[in-house]
């Protein structure tokens, strides 16, 4: 069974969203677009899925939102990372690096013992 190229690893979507927002306040479409662009098209997401997650981040106080005008003079809801959101992002990145490192070490070890 081959994995769909665009499928996100479980548990990473929230982290990616926090990261995207840490680069600057953005509206929903912008967040989705940012993730896709920064991943070089690897992380292809169902764009609508950003909205429930944004709502969850709001509820946890990791982001705040306000209505602003876009450069095209349209009204849009901009989401901005809070200090606690930043701490959460740091924690998740640390967790991610630890996991990746661990998984990676296992993968290497497997080839030596095999």
């Amino acid at each position: 069974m081959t994995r769909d190229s665009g499928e996100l690893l479980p548990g990473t979507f929230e982290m990616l969203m926090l990261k995207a927002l840490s680069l600057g306040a953005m509206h929903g479409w912008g967040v989705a677009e940012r993730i896709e662009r920064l991943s070089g098209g690897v992380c292809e997401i169902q764009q609508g899925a950003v909205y429930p997650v944004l709502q969850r981040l709001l509820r946890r106080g990791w982001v705040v939102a306000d209505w602003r005008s876009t450069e095209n003079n349209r009204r849009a809801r901009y989401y901005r990372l809070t200090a606690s959101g930043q701490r959460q992002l740091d924690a998740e990145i640390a967790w991610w690096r630890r996991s990746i490192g661990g998984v990676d070490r296992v993968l290497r070890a497997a080839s030596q013992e095999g």
Partner: protein
Amino acid sequence: MSWVHAFRERVTNLLTGRAWDRGLEEEIAHHLELETNRQIAAGCDPAVARARALARFGNPREVTDATRDERGPQLLEGGMQDLQWALRSLRKSPGFTALALFTLVLGIGAATLAFSVLDTVLLRPLAYDHAERLVFIQEKTPKRALRPASYPNFADWRDKAHAFDRVVAAQFPFGITMSPSGGSDTDPVRIELMGVSRRFFSTLGVRLAAGREFTDDEHKADAPFVVMVTYEFWQTRMGGHLPLGVLRSGDDVAQVVGVLPPNFQFIAPSDVFHPLERGAGTVRSAHNYMVVGRLAQGTRLESARAEMTALSKSLFATYGNATEAEDAEVRPLRDYVVARYRTMLAVVFGAATLVLLIACTNLISAQLARGWAREREVVIRAALGASRGRLIRQLLVESVLLVGAGAAIAAVLAAAAVRVVRAIGAGLVPRLNELTVDGRVFGFVGIVALVTAMLVGVYPAVRLARGDAGLVLRSTRGSANTVQTSVWRLLVGFEIALAVVLLVGSALLIQTLHNILTADTGISTHGVVTATISARGEAIGRIEQLRDELRHLPGVESAALADRLPFAWGNRSAPVRRPGDPVDHDWVAFAGFRVVTPEYFPVLRHPVLRGRGFAESDRAGAPLVAVISPGIAEKLWPGLDPIGRTIATNYLFDKWLTVVGVVAEASNWSMPRGSQNEIYVPLAQHPTATEGQFVVILKTAGDPHTLFAPVRARLRELAPNSPAQISTLDDRIARSAADRRFAMLALTVFGAIALTLAAVGIYGVIWYIVTTRTHEIGVRMALGATAGNVQREILGGAVAMAAGGILVGSIGGVFATRYLQATLYGVSRLDPTTYIVGGLVALLAALIGAFVPARRTSRIDPMISLRTEA
């Protein structure tokens, strides 16, 4: 401060749900626009750019739902949406909705009615000011028996006790004939007259509807005759006019000075009140007064008790056995008024609770079944991102909606049914004439509805939400139903168990009532018509003439006269003594007292055990004679022949009577055998001993009720000034079993409802099994099973379900009927026949409930059912 943001977000969500929704809509629209533009910029054909944007976005509806689910609790807006969802889903299955409402209305309605009765009779304070300070005081004999007070004892309590603001008394009422003025007819009417002591009504805290209370002067023995009347008497008999009119009784004219408030009743029903000092008793052993004390502000019941005990002891020390009261019992007035009915009302309320439980169980199983039927829908929605919490909430809202509607309908119906209960119950249970549905009852309905909604809503919702999605998605329709229906079967078995408890209870009460009505009273009550006539001051010859006239009415076989009805023991009981017994104390025996004509014993087939009954020769001037019941003989002359001995009763103070006969005890079920000694004397020898009241006793071979009209017509001709109360002895016995009849009616109605609901429950489970197993049944029929085979198997399953319930219910009945113990008469609460019959009735209901859906199997076409399966 992340929690500040979080909190603000929540509050904003809570308050601005609609605005929030519009905001999300705008965000999504904007999003799609931006994505469409990007697709075009990337070289996509503008015609399909929008569709591609949508494809990348996903279903906006699902996104909205999923986002909303992330928002946490939404009281206002989300609630509205759930409500709409629930309404839609209820409308989609009108059959279920109607059945659920029917079930709920029955259950909640029964509980509401039972509560309003319980509340009115037991819980609400009496309709007096500061009724909690009113206490009822009785004499307590050395043998711990409770008796009403005598006048001298009451007077001592009133004058010497400090625990009370006031102590007042009322005499047991007696019948008298009076002609009211002011009304449309001034014909004499028979009324119940009650004597009351000074400031009786103001002590109770009664607010008069009109006029005033008696003045202290009017309470003097030689004061002019004044009376107060009940509101009902004033309205129906005196036209409700002001100024208040008069009542005439012979040459006496009584001015009406006051009118009591509507529904006033003090223990014994009466119409007219007069100052009792006009005829106050002087004998310390004549127990004719109901005494009420109003506790002084801040005085506790215990200290009042202690003082009354001390006071009684000192009175006993002074007067010795003449008072018979060594101690006094002090208890809240309300307790005294309703004490007899406490257990019975608790039983009725318990029965209603069982009905409600059954209704809840029915609804729980129906919701479960609906849940299973919708499981795929639910699982698919969950897969699309609807959170389980949201699903639970929606199912809960549906239950709350159902229960709310059911409770509302039940409350309205209960308010209407209260009139019926009041009409049926007013004569059977005290205070039921006050029955209303008020705020407290509606509050009760609210609480019941809440608990019901919790019971009905939470379990199915949680169970459904916990359901294994994978299982459901993989499974073909309904193959999981073995697990599911096992829960359901359990619930239905539980319903049947509850119904059996109610059936057993009502069957026991039906037998009790039957036993009371057919109990051996020692006399023959069949075909006996009694006409009670007030004829104060009439010559005895006139009364005898009246009897003879009635004796000649067609259908009348024989007739007799007495001063009181058989079984009307009332309070007329006095010491009897032998020659040489001291007058004032050391009474050996007590006895009721009856004045009768010689035909009395033969007409009532009252057996004469020794000696003779009365004869025409026992007339004035002849030796004074008496007939006694065996109890007196045993007490006064144990082991000796009482015939020819002499006896006296306080009712005929210094007259010595020769015992000429002993008659069997005439026993009423309500009185334990052996306790009602009677002494009978001939009317001809004591024409003035009757207190102006006579009962003509007529015996007929036919239906006694057919005699009512001719007797009434003849009496109106012969004695227009003496209105009569006509009844049959059997009816009077039935009336004396009134409270049991009320409990029996309630339990029977509730039992029938319970049985219906249980049958509906069985119908539901069998219907579900049949419809969800159409495929399996089709396969089996294709393999050669007949519809009959399948039906027998299904009915067998129903019988197994019912049998379990019946067994559990019978065991429950053994425990539950303990509360009926005191109410039962002539039947054991463990009577095996009752349990067997109750079980069979429940089984029959189960079979009927199962048979209707089971028949559907015969319409199953194997080929079609095989093809319908996905």
